[in-house]
Every structure is written in structure tokens, then in C-alpha cells.
């Protein structure tokens, strides 16, 4: 509410158009609280209220994107507090990155909310759902707009909390409760590193303002000296949590326990994108001169960016392999998200060499669109099949749900990287960067593309083709318009985003004045980097033909599983990562907490607290004896006191 007042004030006192950003930020917060406080019982009004809030925010974002997409500006900041050397601001920064991200977040959020009116129609906590979604959007917009690391961190945590509320939305289901806790705790680990990284940067650079930091880094790339590598990695830990990179990826597949619209919002367009967005925002950290403290001397020669590249590449491959043997439609998409996020992170790391992370950001934007569409499509399928999520119990949905099928197929084509759909162009940029920087990671990218096409084709072939294999699929019918319209809307950018010069726009942000490839966008990739383009296309076609050969004849069971044998078992069990954590982390944690408990119980509560209070109590009882009640004693003590005072004063 305070922000609202500030925004109001800012709008009144200044005439700066960029202060509109305050309205974008505050609007969802007002909606969230307004819904929760004023109309917690009115279903229709709460939906209208929250949807209109986000849609208005989207329209305002579009205005700002047109105005500030090519330049940077700051909204009037609000001074929060200032303590010894730290002037904490709540300030909003607008530039190509943040305005584009505003569009993505508010756009996807609007569609997800509209979709939810259909999907969540029968839920008894309908209003709570909308109010929590608005709260989440507010938190995410705070990350997007933050102009300093402190504010970024605050909203980072807010995203953590609101995602916890959304993943655990059906808290009466134990699995949902566990998943939300898992997501929150895993994120906390990353956040802890993030916070340490922020502190490290602050202690060396003395400021948390992102623009000021960037200026300092441009002036002196060796600003952090030996701390550069460590600070970069610690900051990256935050991204590892939110963007679910190995080994902190475990929360994301479980988080599919949340309602499907939540998965579409959180796990496609917003929360998981936050990590990559933050890396792009703080990209200057990774182009800085690498350095390590003496204790980490063995890392000399490596840079934080290299390590990030490896983690990203590994996550991309690892998650894609797991996705091949998943049967749950949402889990396949979840591992696909992990894999694509891995590609983006890898692209950030690779981009550090050329000083251009636009490939990563480009893929983030296109991915947000088609992955949200895929999740919403999956939701439509699940909804139609009476909450059946196993693809082997579906089948034949192509004719029963044509709108869902066509949009899902379009999303699959985009994800697989078939031209002229969006995914092809953004993935091609990543492959091109990788080819230039390191052929190994180019290989990783191509392999991931093969696998991606394979598991997505498997999903589509099994779920939509053939005959219905389950009760739910038998009675399935197309979802209501509230659900199909957002799907159709999302299909537009997935199909046509390639016609916009988005890649150039983004690389203009990272390298001002540096003209990108230019020319024909649609066939651009084949002109400027034919190797990458043809490998990408070839990989996709290879993946598809592989999948078609296995699943084209609509088998009733996965023919791949027996072929892979034990490997399939491992893939189905996510390579036992969760089990390993259970076996190692949990016992250590239990041991530590037992030790802490013993210290608290015996040393602190027993000795320190009880001991001290005992001494005080005895002193009190002893002093009480002075108070005899006898007036003679009192008068005597009084007079003695007078003498004492005179002596003390005149000594």
C-alpha cells in the first residue's frame, strides 16, 4: 500500500512518463490485497478484478516498451532507508531487457489468468487463487524492474514465497504440501549464495545500484580482483535455485503438483526465467576479469562464466535424457523446461566471451511463449481427461480436441526448433554462439535438440494420435473458450515472432552500436551461420524420425523401455538424485539439528538461562530480607543512606 502512495506521489509531483512503471508494479499488489481483504467471497468479481489489473499492466508495459525499449530510464526512486553507507532505494529501471521482460511477464500472466477462469472453475478457493497469482506477478515484476541488488533480492524472496503459496495451493494434498516445501527450501539454498554474492559485491564495490556497478565494471573490469570468480558463482547460485540448474533442479518437477496454470506461469515464463534474466542483468559480472582468492588457486584459468557454461550444458543434457522416459505429461514438460533453461544458462556463459548474452535472452522470450502454450495445452488435456496425466492412458485426442491439438503441435514444433517457428531462431542463435566459442557445447546443443524433438514427438504421438487407451481420453471433449482462446493467442508469437527483429534488438542492448546480422530474418540463420542452422534443423528432423519409428504405430506400451533396460529404470527414477539427497543430505541435516538441539537444551537453556535466572532470583529473595517492615529499620537505613550520599558526594 505504501508503494501505492509513493507511486501516486511520484505521478503527481513529477511529469516523468517512466513513472508509469510504478503503476505496473503496484497494480497487481493492489489487486492481490484488494481481493483478499475486500472480496474474498465474490468469485466473479475477483476474477474480473485481477484479470483487468494484469491486463492494464500489460497495456502499460506495451506503452513503456515502445517508449523505452531502445534507451534506458529510471522511474523516480523511493528512498527506503539509509544506514551507514548503504542508501537503500526502491527504484525502477527501464531498458530493452526490463521492458521486454515486462511484456513477457504481464502478457503470459494475463493469458494464464483468463485461462484459469475455465481451469479453476470448480475450485472452492477460486478467489485465493487469483489473489495469490496477482501477488506472484507483483513479486516477479519487482525483480524485472529492480534497479539495485537489495531490491532485487527482496523481490527474489517474494517470488520464493508466492511460488510456495501457488505450488502448495492444494495444500490438502500431502504431495502438494511437500512439493511447495521442497521448492521453497531448495530455492533458499540458492538464495543464501545469492545473498553472500551481493554482500561480496557490496563490500568491494560499495554500491548495490546496478547501473553504478555496471559503470564501475566498464571503467575497471578487474574491479572485484580475486573475488570476481567467487562473487560471480555466488550470484549464480541464486539463478541456480530459481532457474533450477543442477544440482538444485530437484524442486521443479515436483512443483508440477501445483495447478497447471501455475505451472504455465511459474515454470515457463516467470520464476524460472528470473534466474536467467538476472544473469543477463548482471552480465557485466561475467565479462569482468576472472580471479580467485588464494585458497581457490586451483581454479585459476577458469572463469565463473566457464563453470556456468558447464553447469548449464550438463543440466540441458541431463534433463533432456530424463524427459525421454517420463510418462506424466506435465513432468515431460517440466524436464523439458529444465533442459531449455540449461541451454539458456549455457548461452549466458558462452556469451561472456563475446560480451553478448542476447542469444540467451532471446531464447528466454520465445521459450516463455511456447512453453506457456504447451503447459496450458497440457492443462486443457488434463482437464478434458478428468485429471489423467499419464500419456499412456490418453490417445486419439487429435480429433476430440482440435484446437488444443493444433496449438500443442505448434508449440512442439517451436520447442523442437523447426523453422519458421520461434524456437528455431532463438535456438539457432545459441548454437551459433556455441559453435563460435566451443565445439563441445555446440555438440551438447545439437544433442539436446535431438532429444528434445524426440521426447516431444513421443508425447504428441502417444497422447494425440492412435486410439484412446483410457477411460478419460474416451470421454474427452474440447475445453471451453476461456481455455482455448489463451492457447490461440499464445500461438501467435510462437508462430510469428521470427518476423520481428528481436535478436537484433537484444544484441543492441548488450552491444550498443554493433549492427547484428541484419538482412532477411526468416532465412537469416541459413545465410549468416549455415552450419549451426543446418545442424539444428537436421537434429530436429532426426529426432522426429526416431520418435516416429518407435511411436508412429501407436503402441500401447513404451517400446523403448525394454531396449534401454536398466538405463530406462534410472531415467524413470531421475537418476536417483532425490534418493541420493535423501541418503546424504537428510541424515547430515538430522545429525546437525540434534547437535544444535542438545546445545540449546543443555548449554543455553540449562546453563545460561536457568543459571542466570537462578542467580537473579536468589538476589531478589535476599534483598527482600532488607525490607523487614519495621519502621525503625527503615528510619535507620534512611539516615545511613543520607550519610552515605554525603560521603559519596563530598569525598
Amino acid at each position, binding site marked *: 500500500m505504501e508503494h501505492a502512495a509513493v507511486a501516486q506521489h511520484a505521478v503527481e509531483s513529477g511529469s516523468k512518463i517512466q513513472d508509469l512503471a510504478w503503476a505496473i508494479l503496484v497494480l497487481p499488489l493492489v489487486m492481490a490485497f484488494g481481493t483478499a481483504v475486500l472480496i474474498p467471497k465474490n468469485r466473479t468479481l475477483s476474477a474480473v478484478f485481477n484479470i483487468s489489473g494484469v491486463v492494464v499492466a500489460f497495456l502499460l508495459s506495451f506503452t513503456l516498451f515502445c517508449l523505452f525499449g531502445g534507451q534506458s530510464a529510471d522511474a523516480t526512486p523511493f528512498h527506503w532507508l539509509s544506514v551507514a553507507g548503504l542508501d537503500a532505494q526502491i527504484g525502477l529501471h527501464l531498458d530493452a531487457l526490463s521492458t521486454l521482460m515486462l511484456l513477457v511477464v504481464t502478457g503470459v500472466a494475463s493469458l494464464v489468468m483468463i485461462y484459469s477462469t475455465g481451469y479453476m472453475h470448480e475450485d472452492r478457493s477460486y478467489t485465493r487463487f487469483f489473489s495469490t497469482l496477482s501477488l506472484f506477478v507483483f513479486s516477479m515484476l519487482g525483480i524485472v524492474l529492480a534497479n539495485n541488488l537489495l531490491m532485487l533480492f527482496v523481490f527474489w524472496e517474494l517470488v520464493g514465497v508466492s511460488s510456495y503459496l501457488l505450488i502448495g495451493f492444494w495444500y490438502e494434498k500431502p504431495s502438494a504440501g511437500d512439493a511447495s516445501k521442497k521448492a521453497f527450501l531448495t530455492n533458499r539454498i540458492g538464495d543464501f549464495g545469492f545473498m553472500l554474492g551481493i554482500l561480496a559485491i557490496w563490500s568491494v564495490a560499495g554500491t548495490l545500484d546496478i547501473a553504478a556497478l555496471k559503470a564501475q565494471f566498464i571503467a575497471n573490469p578487474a574491479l572485484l580482483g580475486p573475488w570476481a570468480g567467487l562473487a560471480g558463482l555466488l550470484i549464480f547460485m541464486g539463478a541456480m535455485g530459481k532457474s533450477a540448474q543442477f544440482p538444485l533442479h530437484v524442486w521443479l518437477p515436483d512443483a508440477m503438483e501445483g495447478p497447471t496454470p501455475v505451472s504455465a506461469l511459474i515454470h515457463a515464463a516467470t520464476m524460472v526465467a528470473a534466474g536467467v534474466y538476472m544473469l543477463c542483468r548482471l552480465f557485466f559480472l561475467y565479462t569482468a576479469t576472472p580471479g580467485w582468492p588464494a585458497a581457490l588457486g586451483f581454479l585459476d584459468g577458469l572463469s565463473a562464466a566457464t563453470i556456468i557454461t558447464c553447469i548449464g550444458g550438463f543440466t540441458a543434457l541431463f534433463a533432456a535424457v530424463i524427459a525421454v522416459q517420463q510418462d506424466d505429461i506435465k513432468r515431460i514438460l517440466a524436464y523439458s523446461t529444465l533442459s531449455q533453461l540449461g541451454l539458456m544458462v549455457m548461452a549466458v556463459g558462452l556469451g561472456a566471451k563475446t560480451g553478448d548474452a542476447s542469444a540467451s535472452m532471446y531464447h528466454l522470450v520465445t521459450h516463455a511463449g511456447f512453453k506457456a502454450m504447451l503447459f496450458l495445452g497440457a492443462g486443457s488435456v488434463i482437464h478434458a481427461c478428468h485429471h489423467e496425466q499419464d500419456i499412456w492412458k490418453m490417445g486419439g485426442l487429435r480429433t476430440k480436441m482440435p484446437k488444443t491439438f493444433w496449438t500443442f503441435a505448434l508449440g512442439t514444433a517451436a520447442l523442437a526448433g523447426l523453422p519458421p517457428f520461434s524456437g528455431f531462431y532463438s535456438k539457432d542463435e545459441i548454437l551459433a554462439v556455441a559453435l563460435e566459442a566451443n565445439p563441445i557445447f555446440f555438440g551438447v546443443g545439437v544433442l539436446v535438440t535431438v532429444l528434445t524433438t524426440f521426447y516431444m514427438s513421443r508425447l504428441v504421438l502417444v497422447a494425440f494420435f492412435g486410439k484412446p487407451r483410457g477411460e478419460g481420453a474416451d470421454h474427452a471433449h474440447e475445453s471451453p473458450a476461456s481455455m482455448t482462446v489463451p492457447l490461440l493467442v499464445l500461438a501467435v508469437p510462437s508462430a510469428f515472432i521470427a518476423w520481428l527483429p528481436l535478436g537484433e534488438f537484444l544484441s543492441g542492448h548488450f552491444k550498443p552500436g554493433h549492427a547484428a546480422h541484419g538482412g532477411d530474418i526468416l532465412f537469416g540463420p541459413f545465410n549468416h551461420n549455415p552450419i549451426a542452422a543446418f545442424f539444428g534443423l537436421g537434429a530436429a528432423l532426426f529426432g522426429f524420425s526416431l520418435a516416429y519409428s518407435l511411436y508412429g504405430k501407436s503402441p500401447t506400451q513404451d517400446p523403448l523401455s525394454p531396449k534401454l533396460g536398466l538405463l530406462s529404470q534410472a531415467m524413470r527414477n531421475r537418476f536417483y538424485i532425490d534418493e541420493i539427497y535423501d541418503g546424504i543430505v537428510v541424515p547430515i541435516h538430522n545429525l546437525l539439528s540434534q547437535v544444535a538441539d542438545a546445545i540449546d537444551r543443555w548449554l543455553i537453556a540449562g546453563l545460561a538461562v536457568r543459571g542466570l535466572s537462578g542467580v537473579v532470583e536468589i538476589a*531478589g529473595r535476599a534483598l527482600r530480607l532488607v525490607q523487614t517492615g519495621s519502621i525503625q529499620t527503615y528510619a535507620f537505613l*534512611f539516615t545511613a543512606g543520607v550519610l552515605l550520599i*554525603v560521603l559519596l558526594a*563530598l569525598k
Partner: protein
Amino acid sequence: MNYSLITLEILAVLLGLTVLVADLWVAPATRKALGLGLAAALGCLLAFAVGSLAPQSGSAFTGMFVVDDLARYFKGFFLFAALAVVLMTVDFAPKFGAGLSEFFALTLFALVGMLFAASASDLVLFFVSLELITVTFIVLNSFQRTRSVSLEAGVKYLILGGVSSAFMVFGIALIFGTANATNLAVIAAKQKELGQSALFLVGLLLVLVGLGFKIAAVPFQMWAPDVYQGSPAPATAFLAVGSKAAGFVLLIRLLVGAVPQIAAEWHRLFVVMSGATILYGSLCAIPQRNLKRLMGYSSVANAGYLLLGIVAGSAAGSTAILYYLAGYAFTVLAAFTVISAIANHVESDDISALSGLGQRSPLLAAVLTMALVSLAGIPPLAGFFGKVLLFKSVLEAAPGHPELYALIAVAVVGVVISLYYYFGVIRAIYWGGQSANLSTIPVALPTRVVLLACVAGMLVLGIFPQGLMKIADHAVAGLSHKAAPSAPKAAH
């Protein structure tokens, strides 16, 4: 001479006499109405005292009596306290049996003593106003003639008050003998050469003894627990708030206004007194089972905290005292209003008798809890901010005086200990085990008004401190200008 300066005091005396006379015509059954009428009249006086029609600044009776911002601050303070006490007496009346009007009249005469104390700028007026307060309180404390503890309280207050007055008047005589004057302004002008005279210093110390008795500071605190426990609750409330504040306004006038340099020399004395008072009050409160006795020790401990402002010896210290007293008044009046309101419904003053109060009267339980929380100094209530100001004023004076850090440490320990015994009472209110009697306790409208006013006061002072701080700053500023051109804290 400008007699209009004492309008307030004259009106208060007349009001007291009117109550006494009116008693002859008012039937015993309607004496409560008399109390309400009196409260209304006091409300008018309060409005007059803080309004723009109040007497302008000036002095009368050859400089004995001054009206300045400090005096006005305290007059408003005392009038508010008296108003609250009169209203809580209305509720407490059945315990008296007879003589309600006399109790009202005596309350008013004590108030007159306090009003004069607020303006006293001469040691003679110091003495006279303090005597007026002491003598009326002797009667007020022993007002429940049928209860031996009440009589005991009165007798103890009489004897120890007498001892303290004897020391004080002896001190005034010594001062007059050496300074040839009793007026503070004259003494202030001569303080440099007077500081050389041991006799003068002894005289000054003996005056401080008298004031130390009033505020119940160690080593003159012995009377407080017994008297607080034995006296009727409204009398105890007025003693705790009015009498203590009267002691402090005189201390400020004397030490900060008149002899700041000598006070700075005695720095260590005040440090020791303050620390000892805090520790004594806090430690002794721990084993108490009687709520009023606990409040007595709490009052001692609070005198110690207030002395921190004297230790600081700065304008900030005096401001802090004024602020703390205001918060303390709201808090203690709230607590005693609750004690008065439940006096007719619970069998004893024991803390254990409070069990079940949370069910019997949620309002009274909540207000008492808030009062105790405020006394413990927990935000966002008045007590917290008052303590912050006091501690801050000492910390500002601390560089170069390591003993002040020790004093702060002692004060913090005192706060921690106080949490223990205040929360013991809160525990009794809500988790005190099964109480046999769970009948609801009715809360009359006047009491409700007092309670809500006190709660509002605690909250406002705790959350929006700027307003009162400004007023207190103003009140203190006039003081140091007049008598102490140099900084109060002289070279040490």
C-alpha cells in the same frame, strides 16, 4: 504583582473547598455523581491549563513562583493524573464506606501542592508544596481506616516523610545560611563561589535527600513497597504518578536549572544512585506475589530509569525525563484503574487472584497487559520510546565516561529482569489456572473512558513520538536559557 499567574491553583483550591461544602447537601447515594461533577470540573481546568487562555509566562511573589513552559507541561500532567484518579475513585468508592468527598477534597489539595511544585523557583516554596503533598498523602494512604495495612501505610509514610522533611528543611537552612538566599535564580548566579562552600554542598545534598524520598530512589526507597501495598489503589496511583513527577520537576529545576555545574561534579553520585535504584527495584520485584507491592518496586525501578536523565545532565536528558514521565503516567494510571475496577470483584491484591481475568473482563485484562508491556519497555508502546530517549541521552554523554557504559549495561539488565516479573503477571491473567469465580466484571463508562484514554496515550507516545518530544524539548529549552548559559555538563 501578577496574581493571574496563580489562577489555576486558586481554582483548584476553590474546587476542593466546594467539594467539601457540597458534601453537606449531597445524599450519600449520589456521591458518585459528585465525583463525576468534579471530574468534569477538572477536565475544564485541564483544558484551561493547556489551552491558549492559560496564564502567560512570568513570575510572581518576588520570583518564588514562575510560570514557564516547564511549569505548564507539568501542570497539565498533574491535572490529567488527578482527573484519572478521581474517576478511578468513583469505581473504588464502595471500599471506603464513608468519606468519599473528603477523599476527593484531599486529592485536590494534593493536586494544589503539585501545581505549586511545578512552578516553585524558591526553596521555601519547594518545601511548602512538598509538605502539602506529603501531609495530604498521609491521610490518603490511611484512608481505609478499617484496614490495618492502610493505617500502617499512613503511619510509615508519616514517620519517614517526617524524617525526610527534617533533612530537607535542615538543608534549606544551611543553604540560606551560606547563600543568604533561597531563590533559585539568585543561587544560580552565585553557584561558582557557593560550590566552594562545604556547608552549602551539604545543604544541597540534604535537599536532594528530601527529593529522593519523594521519587523513591535508593537509599530512600524503603517506604515505597509497604505504602504502595497498603494504600487504597487510587491513592497509590496518585502517589506513583503525581508525587513522583513533583519530585522530578523539582529535581530538574534545582539540578538542571539552578546548579548544573555542581550537579556535573556529582556525576558519580547520580550514576551510583541510578544504577542501585534500577537494580534494587528490579531484583526485589521478582519474588513478589502482591500486585500493588510489585508496582511499588516497579515504581522504584522506574525512578532509577528516570534518574538516567539526570545523569545525562543534558537538555536531551531532561526532555527524556519529561517524555518518560508522560508515558509512565498513562501506563501506571491504566494499571491502577484496572486494579481499582477489579478491587470489588476479586478477593485480594494477590497476583494469583488475577487468574481468569482474561475471561471475566477481556477489556481490563487487555489494558493491564498493555500497561505491563509498556512498563517493560516493549514497542510500540510509550514505555519503549521513553526508555530509548533516556538511554540515548546517557549514551550521548558517555564518550569519556566509561562508568556510563556500565550504567547502561545495568539499566539493560534491569529491563531484562523486569520483563520476567511483568510477564509473570500477564501469565497469571491469561494462563493462571482455573479460577473458581468466572463471573463477568462490569466496567463502568467513566472507567472505560479513562482506560481508553490511557491506551490511546500509550499508543500515540509509542508510535508518534515527535509531537510530545517537541513540546518537551520546548519546555526544557526555556530552563537552560534562564539559568545555565554554559553547557550543563561542565568540564569533568
